[in-house]
């Protein structure tokens, strides 16, 4: 079955897919010495949430109730989702909902995204173990942690000071040494480490900051979830073609056809 969202027409993913196959092998070897995975492995035995996380990934991400065509199939993404302890990223009073497939408030008008959306966006980015990713809008740090399980380096910028501080502390505590959190305005990106193999922008804005497009490597992708608080209505997928041309795609993360069939 073809999953048209993962392989949208006119935006071939073959390069990313084949690259991932190669990387899979590299990863198998590299993971032996990879800090985040080690950290996670240590926790595995005494993690009471492991089962809940498995269930979340199985029932909501690998086979979501809103349609098999939206299943996230990338093994690396699924592994990352199975590994990152989401309960460490949600406020203590919402702990019981940490492994439900829904966004949760983290204060300051921000949310920790719905796990399915995190997985879906991560898959859309098409990243591998040698990639460097820029994230604008760290929030709780959960998306950064998921990316850190897959890629070499995550640079993430958060404009709300207390959020940036707590995310940094949390990621450090969990052993994600390959995430760098910066406090501040992400509009101009992070020139020092550019270009990036993928950029994810979770802060709503009236326009995509032009500097971010400039810091995107040719052939790389940018993903922007769009919608009011707690509602991702559409995902903007921007691809910078090899010739520098920008191609955009507005994706619905759920099957909803506005025209009925009788039409």
């Amino acid at each position: 079955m073809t999953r048209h969202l993962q392989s949208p027409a006119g935006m071939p993913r073959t390069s990313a897919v084949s690259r991932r196959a190669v990387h899979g092998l590299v990863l198998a070897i590299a993971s032996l010495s990879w800090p985040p995975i080690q950290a996670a492995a240590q926790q595995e035995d005494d993690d009471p949430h492991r089962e809940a996380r498995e269930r979340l990934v199985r029932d909501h991400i690998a086979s979501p109730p809103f349609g098999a065509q939206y299943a996230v199939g990338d093994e690396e993404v699924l592994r990352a989702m199975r590994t990152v302890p989401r309960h460490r990223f949600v406020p203590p009073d919402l702990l019981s909902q940490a492994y439900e497939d829904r966004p949760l408030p983290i204060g300051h008008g921000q949310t920790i995204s719905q796990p399915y959306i995190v997985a879906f966006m991560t898959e859309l980015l098409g990243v591998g173990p040698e990639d460097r990713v820029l994230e604008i809008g760290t929030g709780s740090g959960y998306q950064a942690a998921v990316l850190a399980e897959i890629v070499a380096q995550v640079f993430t910028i958060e404009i709300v000071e207390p959020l940036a501080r707590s995310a940094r502390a949390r990621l450090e505590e969990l052993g994600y040494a390959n995430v760098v959190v910066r406090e501040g305005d992400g509009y101009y990106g992070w020139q020092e480490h550019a270009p990036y193999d993928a950029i994810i922008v979770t802060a709503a804005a009236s326009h995509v900051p032009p500097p971010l497009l400039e810091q995107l490597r040719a052939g790389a992708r940018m993903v922007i979830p769009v919608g009011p608080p707690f509602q991702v209505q559409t995902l903007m997928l921007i691809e910078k073609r090899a010739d520098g041309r920008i191609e955009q795609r507005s994706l619905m993360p759920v099957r909803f056809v506005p025209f009925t069939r009788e039409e």
Partner: protein
Amino acid sequence: MSAETGRGPLHAVVLLVGAVGIAYEIALMRVLSVAQWHHFAYMIISIAMLGFAASGTVLAMLRRRIEGRERPLLALGALGLSVSLVTCFAASQALPFETFRLVTERAQFGYLFALYLVLAPPFFLASWCIALGFLLEPARVGRLYFFNMLGSGLGAAAVVGLLFWLRPALVPAALTVPAALAFSLSAVGLGRRWQLGLVGPAATLLLAGGQEIRLSEYKGLAYAQRLPEARIVARAHSPLSELTALASPAIRETPGQLSGYPMTELGRLPQQIGLYFDGGSVSAVNRFDGSLAPFAFLDYVTGALPYRLLERPAVLVVGAGGGTEVLSALAHGARHVTAVEADPGVPALFRGPLREFSGRLYEREDVTFILAEGRRFMEGQPDGSFDLIQLALLDSFTAAGAGVHALAESYLYTTEAVQLYLRKLAPQGILSVTRWLKMPPRDAIKLFATLVEACEQAGLPDPSRHLVLIRSWNTATLLLSRSPLSQPQLAEIRRFAAERGLDLGYIPGIRREEANRHTILERPFYYEATTALLSGRRETLYRAYAFHVRPATDDRPYFFRFFSWRSASRFLEAARSGWLNFVEWGYVALIATVLQAALAGFLLVLFPLLLFGGRAGRRRGAVAAYFGALGLAFMFLEIAFIQRFMLLLAYPVYAVAVVLAGFLLFSGVGSWFADRRLTSTVSAGSARRIVALAVALIAAIGLTYLAVFPAIFRLASGWTDAGRVALSMILLLPLAFWMGVPFPAGLQLISDRNRALVPWAWGVNGAASVLGAALATLVAVHLGFRAVVGLALVLYVVAAVILSASLSRS
């Protein structure tokens, strides 16, 4: 008992309490619009109902114990009212309630419930005082009702005036003064010690000093306050809005996506100050030093398209706000710009604290600033005045997506409005409207449908040659050219779209393969929808589309409502699989209010009915039906007229104040009249006759108004504000006068026969009034203003029949 203590104070007490009650209600609506969102207006109405109905029920149930103690109980109620205004308000602001979190946190339902409980006491106590007043003066309820209505009318008018110079958060404190006076008067004759109670309200005023509104953390301003170096540089307020100007280097608001803007070549965006309206939607004020070079970025948004087609145009910007569209017009070589803005806070800030920062934008020779509502302003302009009419993006991206404005009336986006714009355009002129886009598509499709139908109604032979729709990923700009678009113009549009990487949704002669090329959607939705709208398949599209995209009209001015019951199952299915993303909050709030009001009405009205049952049971049923029908009918007319008079009075808040004041005042006069005709011990026959007469006249006047309003409103569109307010009052007078008759006539009848039923009738009427307010909006959204008026007239007839068939028989 009461008879010996003068009536003067009692009338004054009822008047003051009536005024405080309604003023508090209107002020709370403003507060909740700032703290949360506009749709909370409905919630306040239902909270008021809860209070009103509850007091009626409690008094009815305690009737034996009350007897002989009415005076002190009234005084206690007034004291409670004067103390509760500030304290209840302060308590409500301490509750951590958040609309958006209802979906994720069960505790939020608890906070919502607590909010109801905390806000209801002042309404309960106000209603308590008035109902006790009826018990104190059983022979003259009509006259007392008059004073109550007079007070409410004055209160509605006064609070609007008050909001010009007081922030809404301070209104409860201001209202404590008349409430305390009401208490003091109500305690006259009870002994001097009672007056010591005044210490209570005085103490609450100390609490009120620093009262601020607790802003939802999901509102734009709350978020902006956490930006680096954020500081509030100025504030302005009016009955329309609270306006906050906030500066931070991280504010960068553009009218949509900057498609392909070469920032390294053309430079960074100018420094901006964000103007936040009610803490929500934002409009940017750009630093301007007279040089237009920094505004090159405004040529990289969809809204720049019309400037490619016009040479040095005379431009009208509707919703000028912070002035970005005005700068865009100037940067694109406009000959002259007329900037129309409805909010008086904007010119106040531009004349004051933002004057230098904005480069005196609104004082330039080539810019004329007009403080007016857009549509009203245009109605007064000569035909053919403008080369370009720009309807700016008035709300924020986030608010648009959440559907919080779903039930806000807007007379800017109706088919009648578009026909008006067409008349005001020069022969080669263009109307340009930009909207934020949502997925799945709806706004731009509805707007396109509106333009198409307006063209047809205006008699343009072939609308398909006049229209354009281009889009980026987050905005669409629609053009309607008064003349058919020329070949060179079409070539220019295609060139602009290609240069900027924008998509053609529609252009005369569009081919399928031209659509959906840059920001690729699953299907070429806009192409498919627009071509269907221009073909014979329009009705099919309206019916088959998942959202309500039929154009808004002056009869149903709800452009922002997209929810369609026909698709409810599809939305529910999406919600059940964990997807609540199509929630339209405004609509949900209304439905919730109707359900809640119906439930509360059942508990507070029907439950006691069942409890008492027995011999009085049937009589109670008739009483409930009569006063329930009157409450519904009264509110149906009131809400319908508020909605309709927005067109005449331009500002919603003025429409609310004028219509409420007029309705209450003139109904009060009507009830005074009824009282004079029905002095004590009414004969059933005379009550029946006067109610029948009133209902016949209400129906006649109502039907006449339905027919003549459009013509009258058009005639008066050029009049001064005072002239239009006067006209409104004259129109309201005869209708409201007769609407004031049935209630006291029925109440007097009951008062004479079974006084214990009076508070209960009062409670039922209160409950029905508030259910009526929510229900009227629901009917207006789906069936229109005429249907609401028609239903009200039917309800009046039903009431008259009940009175003559049941109530007047002993």
